[in-house]
């Protein structure tokens, strides 16, 4: 964003940004900021088999992680069983394979789901994985009401940037509303959606578009729920958001302050929301992503530390710091630990948590916050002008817009307008030949083990019962009157697989057809 060399008092419209903990929450949603409670350190991990991942979770909890973050492999995310031909080469690669309840039981073995919060990055098949989480809690005797955590469950941005869509837009929106309504009822402390700008940002759009697209998607979900007759004063309390933090330090801070203010205002203006908790814009962030480089990877530790500060000045509720080697490999234990230590140094050594919104009232930060709010609202208006988010996606308009931004960023990096230390500036001799220390080795047998376990489940489960549950699910999906979650939970209990459940839903709904438009 273009900014003036100096900002003075007269350039800021509302010199007083108000008080933390009061709507519209420019300065934060809690009156005591991080003094009451630090942000959650949430390290994303998961790979290969449930056994291996369970071991890593226990390791992270032991080291002081306060929440789990589950990464699932692509077959699970796209709704294919590990032995499906579409899964070839992908099982256990970018996360853990979780095809049925038996795997979930292994994954969370020895971990008390009632006392930790679990964030699961899952979208296309989110309703199913959430149902599995509920089922595993049932199995281990944890009351559903005690479950805390978040499922991403944000399909709209999948169509735009991350690509793990399964069904067409319409039934996907229905499934998301089903999940949110069911979760509000049965797992009231659980966040059934985390509306994410992170992935479009990482794909290449700037802070303004990231915020604009994300809030536009948020409003689309609110519209869907309101159309279902739900009360925004209630369900909006459990909507949460998810962003990337890249290196534009002050813009990032302003993005979050503006996001809080704009979201509260939009909910109030458009839906008459009055409940102070429902007006709260709560969000988690990732520091790193595509702002990290493969060249001179240790530079990334400094980047992540700066981004972590921006997230905390912005008032994030949870932060995930990327490991410095993530630009080119699955993090090793060493790099993952360094990333967690970065957060701890910031939280416990720097004193950043001592006062709420320490930058509040800075002419520059307040000016930037106002600009960010205006511009993001303008982006929302553009999408609405086109015919709304759903149409933008079905036509491929939004995707084409993101691709154009991505390319622009790349061109600006190539020509040096955007400086990336160690990559397009300040290179050292022999940068091409970096030695990367310890390298994580993927277990080549993981896929075979997973498939073997799946076959065992198919042999030992009550197949008639699984089939009965799946048929009931399909029947419920053929109409619009039923919430599908109870059916999915039942399918999970019967050890039906993700692929089987998705298959039944595809029978009724078909698949999304990507509008390839460049």
């Amino acid at each position, binding site marked *: 964003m273009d900014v003036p060399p100096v900002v003075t008092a007269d350039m800021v419209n509302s010199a007083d940004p108000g008080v933390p903990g009061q709507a519209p929450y420019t300065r934060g949603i809690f009156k005591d900021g991080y003094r009451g409670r630090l942000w959650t350190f949430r390290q994303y991990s998961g790979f290969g088999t449930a056994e291996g991942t369970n071991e890593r979770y226990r390791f992270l909890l032991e080291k002081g992680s306060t929440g789990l973050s589950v990464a699932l492999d692509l077959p699970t995310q796209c709704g294919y069983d590990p032995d499906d031909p579409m899964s070839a080469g992908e099982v256990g690669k970018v996360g853990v394979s979780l095809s049925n309840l038996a795997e979930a039981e292994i994954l969370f073995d020895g971990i008390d789901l009632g006392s930790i919060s679990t964030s699961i990055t899952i979208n296309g098949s989110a309703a199913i994985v959430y149902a599995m989480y509920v089922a595993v809690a049932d199995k281990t005797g944890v009351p559903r009401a005690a479950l805390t955590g978040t499922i991403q469950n944000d399909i709209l941005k999948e169509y735009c940037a991350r690509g793990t869509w399964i069904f067409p837009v319409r039934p996907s929106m229905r499934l998301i509303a089903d999940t949110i309504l069911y979760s509000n009822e049965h797992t009231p402390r659980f966040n059934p959606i985390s509306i994410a700008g992170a992935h479009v940002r990482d794909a290449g759009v700037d802070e303004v578009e990231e915020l604009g697209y994300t809030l536009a998607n948020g409003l689309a979900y609110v519209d869907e729920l309101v159309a279902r007759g739900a009360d925004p004063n209630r369900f909006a309390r459990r909507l949460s958001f998810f962003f990337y933090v890249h290196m534009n330090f002050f813009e990032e801070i302003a993005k979050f302050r503006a996001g809080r203010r704009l979201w509260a205002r939009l909910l109030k203006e458009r839906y008459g929301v009055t409940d102070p908790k429902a007006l709260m814009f709560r969000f988690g962030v990732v520091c790193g992503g595509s702002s990290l480089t493969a060249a001179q990877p240790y530079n990334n530790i400094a980047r992540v530390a700066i981004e972590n500060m921006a997230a905390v000045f912005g008032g994030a509720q949870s932060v995930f710091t990327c490991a410095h080697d993530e630009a080119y490999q699955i993090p090793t234990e060493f790099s993952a630990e360094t990333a967690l230590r970065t957060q701890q140094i910031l939280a416990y050594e720097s004193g950043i948590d001592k006062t709420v919104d320490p930058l509040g009232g800075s002419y520059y930060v307040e000016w930037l916050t106002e600009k960010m709010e205006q511009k993001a609202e303008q982006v929302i208006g553009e999408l609405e002008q086109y015919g709304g988010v759903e149409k933008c996606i079905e036509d491929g308009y939004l995707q084409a817009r993101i691709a154009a931004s991505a390319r622009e960023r790349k061109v600006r990096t190539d020509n040096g307008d955007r400086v990336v230390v160690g990559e397009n500036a300040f290179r050292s001799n022999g940068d091409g030949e970096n030695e990367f220390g310890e390298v994580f080795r993927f277990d080549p047998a993981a896929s075979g083990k997973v498939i073997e376990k799946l076959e065992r489940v198919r042999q030992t489960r009550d197949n008639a019962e699984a089939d009965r549950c799946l048929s009931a699910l399909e029947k419920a999906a053929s109409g619009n009157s039923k919430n599908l979650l109870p059916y999915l939970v039942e399918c999970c209990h019967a050890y039906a697989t993700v692929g089987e459940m998705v298959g039944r839903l595809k029978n009724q709904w078909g698949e999304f057809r990507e509008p390839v*438009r*460049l």
Partner: protein
Amino acid sequence: MTFDGSNRAVLAKAVTSAARAGVEQILAQDLSPEHEARRIGFTGPPGSGKSTLIASWAEHRLKSDRSVAVLAIDPSSPISQGAILGDRIRMGSMDTREKFFIRSVASTRLHDGLCHNALGILSVFDRWGFDDAVLETVGVGQTECNIRFITGTVVLVLPPNSGDVIQAMKAGIMEIADIHVVNKCDLPGSRTLARELNSVLAMRSGASTWSPKVIEVSSTAGSGLGELDAAIDEHYLWYRENSDRKTILRKRIEYQLAETVSHQFESLLRDTDLDRFQSLGAAYTELLSGLKQPDG
């Protein structure tokens, strides 16, 4: 050679050769082969869903054991001449079926919605024994009338809510289309459009004994495809009975010559250093004499 699904690579090379043909190769082409595929042209504005419609219709066709080849033309960038060829992808999972073949090409410099040597590519499809040959135009609008001369049946595809498009097309492509498809007819606006079309077509002066059809189709819901299929067959029968082979061939030759000359001329123009000439007249004479050499 006959297309049997296993010799796709050979066919693919033959098509490429036609698509890149120079003057001599073009002039040696047989424009009236022994077997001729039924040639069906699909045209219509961008976003009307031509590719998806072709895919759904072709699926119908394959079921009755016919083989179908598609020449799908996408626009070239006027600056780089490069192109993103996206029609094939819009045809979805259809596009690698055994008796189905698609070739995507860029329009390059042509502005009639067709591509260099489209006739030559279609005759490759003839030689390979395809039952149906589909030509999908760029879809820029009413100027794409050359499709009339190189295909037998012209299908104009319109999206709902394109009443203003009709007004713009009245004097162009609508005059030559044999079948008008109101596509995506599950969306609002299609009924009105169909009515409007019928009334515009009713006023079309009837030199021809073919009365143009209006068909509502939804490729996604799969409705109207049977009707479209029947209309295409019906038109083919009519066309076979009522058109004069000589006139058709003559039109093709005219089109091919005009296209070849203009293609040659453009590349001559591009490669000629115009600064050498004192006057426009001198440049003109030089360019014309260049045209006389078949290899430019």
